[in-house]
């Protein structure tokens, strides 16, 4: 609806900034700061692809880009994991089941799951980077036959920050995939697994064929450089490395300029990129 002007209902119909409504259907605490949220879009499915994100709105507080953590599905539900770090994320954390949110999206590029068919997948995920990667991991597991070896590496700061612990347990026990994890420090907690940054897991991998494997790397900004160096040591070509980048974002539709790096808008041209396509960009990593 339009104030004192002639564009009437049109703006309501066409505004790219108008959110739809979704309902919170379940919620679960994962760590001190991260919680899992399941939303229902009522009426239709979100229609996203693995690795895409959406803008979540809380009226009065604001909007934040959040990755969709569930694989594509026909029902109207989708999942997210959100870290309570500021105004919007805090407001989402204080929602109760049955409460509604606004949502715009899905936005951005996705992991090229079709192109990866018949190949080995190596997921290298750090901290909350597991959240977007999970949509691709679960997709690959649902279509297990389409992919050859699947390896998942996960690293986080300390045991208390591990995400999806139930699923991790399941992954560990599956014999059709390899799952390795590490923590930077155990920080006084009970931990009998690996200790060290994520790159320390790479040498543990055996028989990785860099020609037949795609590496999907998602994690905090600092992680990329070292992981890519490690992958290079394993003879990965840049065409076989896929990354998902984070930037400050406001609009999600390539206008506001915040996520721009060189001539690329991360919100539209990414957040998922082949490393080969962005390595020449001085501001990418």
């Amino acid at each position, binding site marked *: 609806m339009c104030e004192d002007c002639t564009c009437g209902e049109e703006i309501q119909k066409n505004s790219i900034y108008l959110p739809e409504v979704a309902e919170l259907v379940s919620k679960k605490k994962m760590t001190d700061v991260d919680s899992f949220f399941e939303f229902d879009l009522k009426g239709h499915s979100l229609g996203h692809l693995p690795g895409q994100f959406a803008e979540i709105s809380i009226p*009065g*507080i*604001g909007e934040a880009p959040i990755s969709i953590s569930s694989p594509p599905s026909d029902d109207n539900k989708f999942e997210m994991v959100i870290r309570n770090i500021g*105004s919007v994320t*805090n*407001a989402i954390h*204080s929602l109760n089941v049955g409460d509604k949110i606004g949502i715009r999206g899905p936005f951005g590029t996705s992991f090229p799951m079709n192109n990866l068919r018949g190949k080995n997948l190596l997921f290298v995920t750090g901290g909350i980077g597991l959240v977007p990667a999970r949509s691709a991991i679960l997709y690959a597991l649902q279509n297990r036959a389409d992919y050859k070896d699947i390896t998942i590496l996960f690293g986080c700061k300390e045991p208390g920050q591990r995400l999806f612990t139930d699923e991790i347990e399941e992954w560990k026990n599956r014999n059709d995939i390899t799952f390795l994890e590490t923590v930077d420090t155990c920080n006084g907690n009970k931990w009998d697994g690996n200790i060290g940054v994520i790159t320390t897991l790479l040498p543990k991998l055996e028989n990785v064929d860099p020609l037949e494997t795609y590496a999907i790397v998602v994690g905090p900004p600092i992680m990329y450089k070292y992981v890519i160096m490690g992958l290079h040591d394993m003879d990965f070509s840049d065409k076989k490395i896929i990354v998902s980048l984070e930037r400050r974002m406001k609009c999600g539709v390539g206008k506001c300029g915040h996520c721009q790096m060189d001539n690329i808008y991360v919100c539209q041209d990414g957040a998922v990129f082949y490393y080969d396509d962005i390595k020449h960009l001085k501001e990418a990593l």
Partner: protein
Amino acid sequence: MGSKPKVAFFDFACCEGCQLQIANLEEDVIGLTNLVDVVEFREVLTGSAPEYDIAFIEGSITRKEDEERIKDIRERSKLLVAFGQCAVSGGINRLKNNRESLDQVKKEVYGDSYNMPHLDTYPTKGVDEVVKVDFHIPGCPIDKNEFLSVVKAIALGKTPSIPNYPVCIECKLRENECLFDLNEVCLGPLARAGCGAVCPSNGVPCDACRGTVDNPNQNAMHEILEKYNYTVDEIKRKINLFGVKPEVKK
């Protein structure tokens, strides 16, 4: 927040011009009292309370006994907001710290009686030099709309946001002629915005009464002021009018 937050206002050494901005909210005062429960505000009402959800502190800390009072308030408050430049940085009161000695200051003001104990004073401090401050609302005086936006943000559970860009932005938005072009020296390029560039818009250079942005480029300012034949001391003096503590390197 479920029920209305209990709010109290306190003042220390200052001109009380910032709380006056609250009175100047006019009809919005009524809106404010719908949003929060004002339980203590000495200038406006008789009454007090043991604990507060939000304590608003105006004024600078200049005496031992003030220090004890503010610590006590801090203990009884969930959130503590420093409002006005005196509370934020000591404000204009900090000027006395720049003088040779405090005894000299006291003598100049109280003459021979300067040593009477109740005239005691120590170097002016901003509130966060004594207790933890959750949010700052800068300005001499505060901008009443900024004050409201902070109160609203807190009521909604949002982090209040105070601009971290210079006054120039707001000055350009108002399409003012730059005062440098009129041969005036303006601190706008360093000063923290939020006031709507009210001084330059009224033809007067900015004195940075809201302090500076997080990372002011003082060296660049220095270069500019040098062109206007300012000495390092004069520049320092200019920048510290409202209690900002700059490190002008050179």
